């Protein structure tokens, strides 16, 4: 047992404790794990049961952890992330696809909140502040902005999102990235808008607003596209011109219509939203894992293109350009009309190398 010299033993004795993590390391990883587990639980559709007592040893912060991670980072943040259009600075301010939503939300925070009643405002403010502080995160958000837009547009316009896909092997996942039937621009840009032309009762208390919002969401989902198109113009005009905030009761439609049925797209959105969150949080490996999970769960999902887009960005962030290029080439082959291809090439810096070809 005397294979080590005294010098080596002294060195080992001096350095034995130097690799111990600091309290900040422990807290940081704990937070990342909470996020990952929440996303995992959200994706699995099971209630999160770690965040409240697992990841915070102190009883004082348990409530905070349970609130922030279980509720916000999981399902709600994923949905909010997709549906909230003013979180990041849009690279193309004049881009029309998001104009109706963007206009409403930017000009009227109340309307933005109304789009997702479950999204806690405090999370939105915290995230926005964080993005505003960190230029790297802001640039990452800009890079991911086209993906987010596409996710939102497809989620709102593509009828395929209403169908849950049968499970197949992951090897066939890329086969699902077939460009769907060419989507007319108008259809992509159209989202069933709340009925702003309905009678406007006077201001109601906030306690009365939530049921009204829920009802609005229920009946919104049942509206026909032409009616939504007609309403979108009115909504834009109202949002641009109105100086007072849009009240929840203003957009509450008549209390008739088919019963709201939860759609499986929510799971897809939550999972992909969590992947994007991870990407913007400089955790590309986590993003990649979530994307792979999405591929397993929704091999024929409606957001397959967006999944590949996030996967490409994550691979680029992980300095794996060859794989990123391969995935992107497959996307370009299967969905040549997708606007994501060119934007991803630009984001990953492939544009110069590949020229104008696929």
């Amino acid at each position, binding site marked *: 047992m005397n*294979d*080590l*010299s005294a*010098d*080596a033993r002294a*060195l*080992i004795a*001096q*350095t*034995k404790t*130097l*690799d*111990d*993590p600091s309290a900040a*390391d*422990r807290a*940081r*990883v*704990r937070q*990342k*794990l909470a996020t*990952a*587990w929440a996303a*995992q639980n959200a994706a699995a559709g099971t209630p999160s*049961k*770690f965040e409240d*007592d*697992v*990841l915070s*040893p102190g009883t004082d912060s348990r409530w905070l952890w349970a609130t922030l991670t279980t509720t916000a980072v999981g399902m709600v943040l994923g949905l909010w992330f997709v549906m909230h259009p003013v979180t990041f600075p849009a690279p193309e301010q004049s881009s029309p696809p998001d104009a109706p939503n963007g206009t409403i939300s930017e000009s009227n925070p109340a309307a933005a909140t109304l789009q997702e009643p479950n999204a806690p405002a405090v999370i939105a403010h915290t995230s926005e502040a964080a993005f505003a502080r960190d230029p790297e995160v802001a640039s990452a958000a800009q890079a991911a902005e086209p993906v987010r837009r596409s996710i939102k547009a497809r989620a709102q316009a593509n009828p395929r999102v209403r169908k849950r896909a049968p499970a197949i092997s992951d090897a066939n996942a890329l086969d699902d990235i077939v460009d769907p039937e060419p989507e007319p621009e108008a259809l992509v840009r159209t989202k069933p808008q709340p009925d702003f032309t309905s009678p406007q009762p006077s201001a109601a208390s906030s306690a009365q607003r939530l049921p009204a919002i829920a009802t609005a969401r229920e009946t919104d989902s049942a509206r026909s596209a032409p009616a939504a198109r007609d309403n979108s113009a009115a909504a834009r005009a109202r949002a641009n011109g109105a100086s007072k905030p849009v009240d929840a009761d203003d957009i509450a439609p008549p209390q008739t219509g088919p019963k709201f049925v939860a759609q499986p797209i929510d799971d897809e959105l939550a999972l992909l939203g969590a992947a994007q969150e991870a990407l913007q949080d400089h*955790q590309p*490996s*986590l993003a990649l*894992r979530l994307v792979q999970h999405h591929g397993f769960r929704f091999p024929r999902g409606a957001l397959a293109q967006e999944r590949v887009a996030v996967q490409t960005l994550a691979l680029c962030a*992980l*300095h*794996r350009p060859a794989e990123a290029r391969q995935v992107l080439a497959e996307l370009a082959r299967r969905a040549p009309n997708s606007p994501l291809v060119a934007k991803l090439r630009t984001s990953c810096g492939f544009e110069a190398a590949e020229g104008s070809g696929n």
Partner: protein
Amino acid sequence: MRTTALLTAARAPEETEARAMPLVRAPLRVEDVYEAHFDFVWRTARRLGVLQPHLDDVVQEVFMVVQRRLNDFEGRSEIRTWLFAITRRTVQSHFRQNSRRPLAFIDEPGELIDPSSRCAESEMLASENSRLLHALLDELDDEKRAVFVLAELEELSGPAIAQALKLDVSTVYARIRTARQAFDMALRRYRARQARMR
């Protein structure tokens, strides 16, 4: 995410005799594992060669695996050996995806030490020693490195190391010996280079 594990190791002999049967099963929760062994996983990942900027991701991945596989842990081995096996595989996977030293500028920056601090000198010495230790560990191959980390830095016993690495105990002892020799030789070479530079 709860599982059961046999808790027999920490029990006093007389207590164990008194309750010889049945074996006490207690729930093993991922949060308990995290709180108790986070430091071990962190240290191990670092000593197996993961650079500081990647430690968060690797350790996080380890505990993701722990969460998924905790049901498989039956308590027949020490949990640290089980965690070491997971950590080692995760680190190897990490190295397959990222070269060990991918880009020079990604390499971990030196600790910023305030020169006005009273402890600046000792901090610099500690930082220098830490860098030296990792440089010497880098010179060992993966098998020797794993054995050396467990034996010399974590002070695990031979049988425990054999369990963690799935090796014979005799093989473990032989490998410890060669790892020590290799480490010592690397240190001597370093000292000789230092002496020539002066």
